[in-house]
């Protein structure tokens, strides 16, 4: 008798465990869908941005510009009269492009605590490689249901990490600040071409150590969003 009870309990446990897994997967997919819907509710926006580039081989003042976005992936940075130097693909990795997939495989990983908030970690694997994204890892604020950290591995541009901070546009999942972290290649030009002046400033030399792969960080602070104003496509066709 006891043998049958043990078998029955084991069966029940297996059943419960399977059910848990199913429930969890369903939650993850639903959470992804929920976030995606929130992000897709923004069809376009214009925002004033301040951009701070922190790359060891670049000295760039904080740039003020206007950023135009139109769903799904049109983006333009307008900086009248000025030069802007931007990472080739990171800036284009908007939330929309990262969450473009309608039917990806979503797997929930363990949960974590970031900035004192409980976050759930989702791995999103696209069902095709059209977007050039191989894998996206999302850290979702459980309470607000918005991504606060994203790690995207692309086919051509390595891995880009983003940290997002929200403010009064949180209901549109539009961040007040995004910090991009990226791996960069070394920068070198022949000294015979640039004819450098070699200074002795140790601080400068320390900053100029650019041997080997570099890490880069770009902070973008968004202010004064104008959302869903019906931006024309012509804005994105301007040649600079």
């Amino acid at each position, binding site marked *: 008798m006891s043998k049958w009870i043990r078998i029955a309990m084991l069966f029940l446990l297996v059943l419960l465990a399977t059910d848990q897994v199913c429930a969890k997967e369903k939650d993850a997919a639903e959470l992804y869908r929920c976030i995606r819907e929130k992000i897709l509710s923004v069809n376009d926006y214009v925002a004033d941005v301040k951009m701070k580039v922190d790359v060891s081989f670049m000295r760039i003042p904080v740039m003020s510009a206007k950023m135009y976005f139109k769903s799904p992936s049109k983006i333009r940075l307008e900086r009248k009269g*000025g030069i802007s130097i931007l990472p080739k693909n990171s800036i284009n990795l908007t939330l929309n492009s990262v969450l473009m997939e309608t039917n990806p495989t979503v797997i929930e990983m363990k949960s974590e605590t970031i900035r004192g908030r409980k976050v759930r970690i989702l791995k999103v694997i696209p069902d095709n490689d059209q977007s050039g994204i191989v894998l996206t890892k999302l850290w979702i604020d459980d309470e607000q249901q918005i991504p606060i950290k994203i790690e995207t591995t692309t086919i051509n541009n390595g891995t880009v990490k983003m940290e997002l901070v929200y403010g009064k546009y949180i209901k549109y999942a539009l961040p007040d600040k995004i910090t991009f972290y990226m791996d960069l290649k070394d920068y070198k*030009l022949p000294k015979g*071409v*640039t004819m450098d*002046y070699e*200074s002795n*400033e140790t601080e400068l030399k320390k900053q*100029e150590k650019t041997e080997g792969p570099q890490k880069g960080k770009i902070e973008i602070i968004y202010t004064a969003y104008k959302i869903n104003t019906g931006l024309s496509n012509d804005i994105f066709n301007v040649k600079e």
Partner: protein
Amino acid sequence: MKLLQIELYKIFKRPRTYISYVIIAAIAFIIQLALYADGDTLVKFMLQGVPDFVVHGKIINGYFVTYIILQTLLVNVPLLVALVAGDALAGEANLGTLRLLLTKPISRSKLVLVKFFASVIYSMTLLIWLAIIGLVLSLLIFGVGDMISFKSNMVVIMSANDVVWRYLAAFAFAGIAMTTVASLAIFLSAITDNAIGPIIGTIGIIIIFTLFSTLGLPLYDSIKPYLFTTHMLAWKGFFYDPVPYSSILTSALVLLGYIAFFITTTIIYFNRKDITS
């Protein structure tokens, strides 16, 4: 003062003096035309080291073009300075007017100093001309904008409103550098009686020293800090971020030391020299 005026009159009376201004204008114009027609190719080449980034905006503007002109011309302007300064004493000796000149009631030291200051004034007019042709004309043709400058291991972007003072400082420093060249040419001019010698000699020294300064070979690293050509490049420091002020000051002091050395040596030598021509 009267002597200086006479020396300046002698310099600016000669048609060949004006060749330098024509050469500067020609080089600046060639660079402006090239950048106007095909500046993007140069920028693409300079930016090939940053494949992870894309640069938007008006890179080819007046400030950038001026930087390229300065980079090219500040290698050539010393040769033009040598053309006049090298002729200062040796030219008189060659013409046979030096002995006559020294019969006048002026000391030899004073004559050397007057020749030197006249050469310096000529060098400064070259730089002012370079500023007009390079900076003013480039700004008129290409307009104003943020400036991008390149080091072998760094890209620096400066806001448009943060550039003018850098050019003023760079031109001021270039003034010290050209004065160094003038003092070397005067020194060589004092030890020969033929004007070609000091001109070729100054040009040769500058070319060889510049090679040592810019080749970037570890073999020459130990002598580089002692060459004036290494320090003549310090004007570029004003376009770095942060500006290496203490290094620029050191370079300025080294150049001033060279000037003092060349002029003192010239005075001592010239005072002892047997003038036979």
